């Protein structure tokens, strides 16, 4: 048993080429690792599609009832809600809402020590492979539900060309926010060891408050505003989906992106701070 002092703060990246190589290598490693889990990818897309059907029918019933009353459900018409549901199911895998326990497992087993010995900051060492994983998920777990949804239902496609690049930026930011959130709840294992409860709490909050179960704007306006500004959860799914279905005008879309960028910056900074605190108190268990 021994005390590990932070080795990660040492500045080891000296120039741009080295940074670029590091990003490429670690990102590619993440991409390759997840591209080998073919069966798991198929299983996940089947499950996402099943929930796509279930949620679409609920949302279509809402849109139908609202249309009968001559209104719209929180500003979404039926095709927008269909796109919302299916793109949401596709994004679960891209941002990887649940099921990431790599860091918590390594803390429990003590393997996390080797992360501290690497010449890369641990946060970066987890982030870059995660971005590679997200790129792979974008090609598989995002496209399949979109295709299934488009075949089975009448979907809304963005009408403004600028929406597409904005959606792309929003997905990257959502992945960053989600990674930081996952890193933080995993890092709770430094203090709690058994982080199952924190992980479940994250799964509930990110799903419900992130806009997976229903669009957050279905809530009363004060509650929706409080969630958007006060919590990072809408930045995970709701914001990219709002951007995609053009729920707001271009200025509103840019505002949403700025909000997401703020949350990404805040949470990533929190990851670095938490990691530093954790390294100060880390006692590796076992032999």
């Amino acid at each position: 048993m021994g005390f590990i002092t932070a080795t990660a703060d040492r500045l080891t990246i000296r120039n741009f080429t080295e940074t670029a190589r590091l990003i490429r290598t670690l990102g590619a490693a993440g991409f390759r690792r997840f591209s080998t889990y073919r069966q798991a990818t198929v299983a996940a897309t089947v499950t996402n599609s099943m929930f796509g059907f279930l949620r679409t029918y609920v949302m279509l019933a809402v849109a139908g009832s609202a249309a009968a009353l001559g209104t719209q459900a929180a500003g979404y018409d039926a095709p927008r809600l269909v796109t919302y549901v299916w793109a949401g199911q596709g994004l679960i895998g891209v941002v990887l809402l649940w099921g990431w326990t790599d860091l918590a497992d390594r803390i429990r087993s003590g393997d996390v020590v080797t992360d501290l010995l690497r010449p890369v900051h641990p946060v970066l060492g987890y982030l870059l492979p995660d971005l590679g994983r997200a790129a792979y998920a974008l090609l598989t777990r995002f496209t399949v539900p979109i295709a299934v949804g488009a075949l089975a239902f009448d979907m809304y496609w963005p009408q403004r060309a600028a929406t597409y690049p904005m959606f792309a930026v929003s997905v990257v930011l959502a992945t960053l926010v989600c990674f930081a959130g996952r890193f933080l709840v995993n890092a709770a294992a430094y203090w709690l060891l058994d982080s199952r409860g924190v992980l479940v709490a994250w799964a509930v909050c990110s799903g419900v408050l992130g806009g997976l179960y229903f669009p957050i704007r279905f809530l009363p306006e004060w509650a929706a505003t409080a969630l958007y500004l006060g919590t990072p959860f809408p930045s995970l799914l709701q914001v990219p989906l709002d951007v995609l279905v053009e729920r707001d005008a271009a200025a509103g879309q840019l505002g949403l992106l700025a909000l997401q960028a703020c949350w990404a910056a805040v949470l990533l900074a929190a990851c670095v701070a938490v990691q530093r605190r954790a390294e100060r108190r880390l006692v590796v268990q076992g032999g």
Partner: protein
Amino acid sequence: MAEAAAPAVDEPHPSRPPDETDLPAAAAEAPASTFAIYRALARAQVRAQASYRVSFALDLVSNVVFLGADLLTVLVVFQQVPVLAGFSLAEALLVFGLSSLAFSLADLAVGNIERMKHYVRTGLLDAVLIRPLGVLSQLVVLDIGLRRLGRVATGVAMLAFAANRAGVQATPANLLLLVIAPLAGAVFFGAVFVATATVAFWWVESGELSAALTYGGRDFTAYPMTIYGGWFRHLLAFGLGFGLVAYYPALILLDRPDPIGGPWWLGWCGPVLALAAAGVATLVWRTGVRHYRSTGS
């Protein structure tokens, strides 16, 4: 949780479980009766889980919140519209209550089985197979879902509230159905849990596939079936039988005809379906265990 999930039973096993007619004195001579072994396994699990207090408390709360999340979805949806596909909020809540109580009972009893793929991949199943106890029952006590108790309690409370709000007449038949329907639904969901977990015997990396039918089935039954379209409704409601879990019993309780034209007595068919499903699940499970090949890890 693999480490905590494998409390080794060190006591020697009796070669056969003692007869039920055994006297207490005989039971004292053979302290490791089958029941005692299961009790020891279960107790070790409960102790292991409860020893991480903060995490256990969060887990317990989160499980109730999970149910709350689904309930919140229904409430939020009805905040947008007063009537959903011909059903009012109180009526929809009755369907939701029946579905979620049935599901949480099944989840409490056999929900752990969804960790099958983990047991197959890590080779823990090998250890389970060589013990002289039932495979399925061992897996069930290996990771007791104590934290799911909160969900069952919430489910009962919600069903009582919904039945009251929806104006269900307190006739003997209705009260009987209010008890039978969740129990039959629980057996049915349990069968779905076991049957879909068996996929892991052939397909180790099956990931969340079983969730499509277990949690997907729960979500399907949680809403009045009138919201679903054509082939999707036919496949899940009648092809797989999910329609009989909550929707048709709720129609009898509400005393209203089926808007999509099903006969009224379908609501009483839950137990028949549950027995059939349990039979199929047993067959699938037996075939799976027989085809098990260790991953060697």
